[in-house]
């Protein structure tokens, strides 16, 4: 799907009149940003489920969603900077609400790992991380609203362009790219979950083979949730 989207990006979508070829980064940058933000909020929703049910699988899902969203957020900041350099002439523009609010959200979520690492007890770690995810998930839209009001707009508005400012060929490409990025996110989530399950099963089996009952055979430090 993503490959198809890239093919459309390069061969189908027309070049932008003002920005030329650089505008193509739009099809990577914007879907990535949207998926990352939705991922943060989904992580918060999973955390709510964890706090309600106390099942560690929800904590795991919340962890994975936030983990991948932070990785996507790095991509968003990098591609956004490249785009800004090309179209506005600066790597970073402060009077730009999108950039600033995205950076704030990114900084906030970067604290997720220090927080998890700083708690020894697994159950407590999961609970506190969930509380953090809920608060931060609610903070994401709030922060965007506040920063958006603070600055005047020069960012190409995604909402407005979807609503009709975009020529049909570009709109189609954008929708395909968005769908591709969402599918990539979901696939990666599933993949990471499967990998974590497999690692855990392997560790449990190995422990049983070795015949020791203590939990101290973990190699390396990890703050990821255990099942």
């Amino acid at each position, binding site marked *: 799907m993503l490959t198809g989207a890239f093919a459309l990006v390069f061969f189908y979508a027309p070049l932008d009149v003002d920005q030329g070829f650089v505008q193509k980064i739009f099809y990577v940058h914007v879907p990535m940003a949207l998926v990352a933000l939705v991922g943060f909020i989904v992580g918060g929703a999973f955390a709510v489920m964890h*706090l309600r049910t106390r099942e560690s699988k929800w904590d795991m899902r919340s962890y994975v969603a936030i983990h991948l969203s932070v990785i996507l957020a790095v991509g968003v900041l990098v591609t956004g900077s490249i785009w800004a350099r090309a179209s506005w002439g600066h790597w970073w523009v402060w009077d730009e609400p999108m950039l600033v609010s995205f950076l*704030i*959200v990114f*900084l*906030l979520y*970067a*604290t997720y790992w*220090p*927080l998890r690492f*700083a*708690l*020894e007890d697994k159950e*407590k770690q999961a*609970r*506190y991380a*969930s*509380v*953090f995810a*809920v*608060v931060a998930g*609610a*903070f994401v839209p*709030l*922060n965007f609203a*506040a*920063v958006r*009001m*603070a600055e005047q707009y020069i960012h190409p508005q995604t909402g407005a362009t979807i609503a009709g400012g975009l020529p049909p060929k570009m709109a189609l490409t954008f929708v395909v790219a968005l769908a591709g990025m969402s599918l990539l996110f979901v696939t990666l989530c599933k993949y990471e979950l499967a990998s974590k399950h497999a690692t855990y099963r392997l560790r449990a089996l190995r422990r049983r083979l070795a015949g020791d009952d203590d939990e101290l055979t973990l190699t390396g430090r990890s703050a990821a949730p255990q099942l």
Partner: protein
Amino acid sequence: MRSTVAALLAKELTLEWRTREAVPAMVLFSIATYVVFHFGLDRDRVVGDLAAGVLWVTLLFAAILGINRMFVAEHEQGGFDGFLLAPVDRTAMLIAKATTLFCFLCVVELVAVPAFALLLLGPPLTQALPQLVLVLLLTNVGIAVVGTLVAGLAIQTRARDLIVSLLALPLLVPVVLAATRAATPLLQDGGAGALPGNWMAILAIYDLLFALIAYAVFDFLLED
């Protein structure tokens, strides 16, 4: 509920009155920060948006000092266990702690804001004092609520001070943003401008929403 909050609040304030641990440190810190700003910016007087920025950044950092100290006594002396054993609503703890932090901030500002006017502020403070107090009160509510939440989140961790600063700064960016924008016209040279209503609205909505979030999740921080 009300008597629980009152009891907890009385305990907090007595504790602070006897130890004088947080508030004097916060006051000294803010005055020291003004001096640092004076040399860092190389200005004798600040006006308008610069003045608002200096004032609120200083207050924010002073508040983080206070937030760092919030649950330390409970954590070290086992006050949490005592509180959890008592048959009272846990939200009382949130309300009492947030009110305590609110009071601390108000006391700090009673000294820090006049000191700011004396040391750095260009136009006289009296021209817009009532509006400025309003902005300060709304800011204090926001900092108190978010600060209590962050302090509760960080108290059990090993790197407490680190986590508090890392969490509180991004979460309080909208508060500082709205407060400085609201206060900028108040601190202009040549008479105070009108108080921008939309920024006050944002501050109030932010305070309200975070109060609700804190109310929803705070119980989970106290289970042990």
